[in-house]
């Protein structure tokens, strides 16, 4: 193996490890706080949205249509952030559904389910809720987080 390949492999392993450590931190928070972890969601969503806008080029200028706004969010989340293999956000009346294929935090969510803990917090959905509040003034509630082998689906409701 060439030196460049070794460095590339080490970087890949570091990324894998960082993701795993972050997932384990999330799991640890859940184990102690349980449903209390949910209360952290909005603050985490604010920081995540800020990072996506400041560091990853998410830009909502020139768009007031919620679907268009969320399409841009998905593009940055999947193509720039690399959070999931594929993402889709649908707005249907006051219902918003986020569907992700193989997201980075799937391991943590599956670990929670194995231990009998229901996921109550989903940072990407919290960031979407903050974005909607910031750009339309409407509050968004996260109503459900569903996890299976390869997908995560989050149901949200826009108030008012």
């Amino acid at each position, binding site marked *: 193996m060439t030196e460049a390949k070794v460095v590339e492999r080490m970087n890949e392993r570091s990324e894998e490890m960082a993701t795993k450590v972050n997932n384990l931190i999330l799991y640890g928070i859940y184990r102690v*706080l*349980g*449903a*209390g*972890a949910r*209360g952290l969601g*909005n603050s985490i969503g604010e920081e995540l949205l800020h990072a996506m806008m400041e560091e990853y080029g998410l830009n909502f200028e020139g768009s007031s249509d919620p679907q268009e706004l969320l399409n841009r969010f998905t593009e940055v989340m999947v193509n720039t952030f690399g959070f999931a293999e594929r993402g889709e956000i649908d707005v249907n009346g006051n219902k918003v559904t986020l569907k992700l294929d193989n997201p980075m935090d799937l391991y943590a969510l599956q670990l929670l389910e194995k231990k009998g803990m229901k996921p*109550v917090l989903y940072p990407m959905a919290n960031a979407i809720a903050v974005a909607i509040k910031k750009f339309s003034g409407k509050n968004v509630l*996260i109503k459900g987080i569903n996890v299976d082998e390869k997908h995560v689906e989050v149901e949200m409701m826009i108030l008012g």
Partner: protein
Amino acid sequence: MFENVIADILRVDGVKGVAVVSKDGLLIEGQANDRTIDVENVAAMVATIYGTSLNVSKEVFHEEAIDMITLESPKGKIITVEAGESAVLAVLTDPKVNLGLVRIYLKRNAQKVASML
């Protein structure tokens, strides 16, 4: 959306603030007469206290349900109740508030909030 709920609870003597907070820590609507309070930040903390208390109840009493959470400080109280599956209702009061009365107003208005979400 919840103006009437907030106004109704603020009528109780000694109540200084009211907040409808999502369990995700988002301030849905609220009012506090002390402008030094960062209501949005407190909303996130209240949601976390509520959720963590549920976890304590589950561990200790094997019951994931709470009637009410009261945080008592020498300078005041924060009382929180569940308002449906997605939100909580919290009030900030003087230390010597009539707790029975606050409880009645909170329970009544929590039902109203729950029916609207």
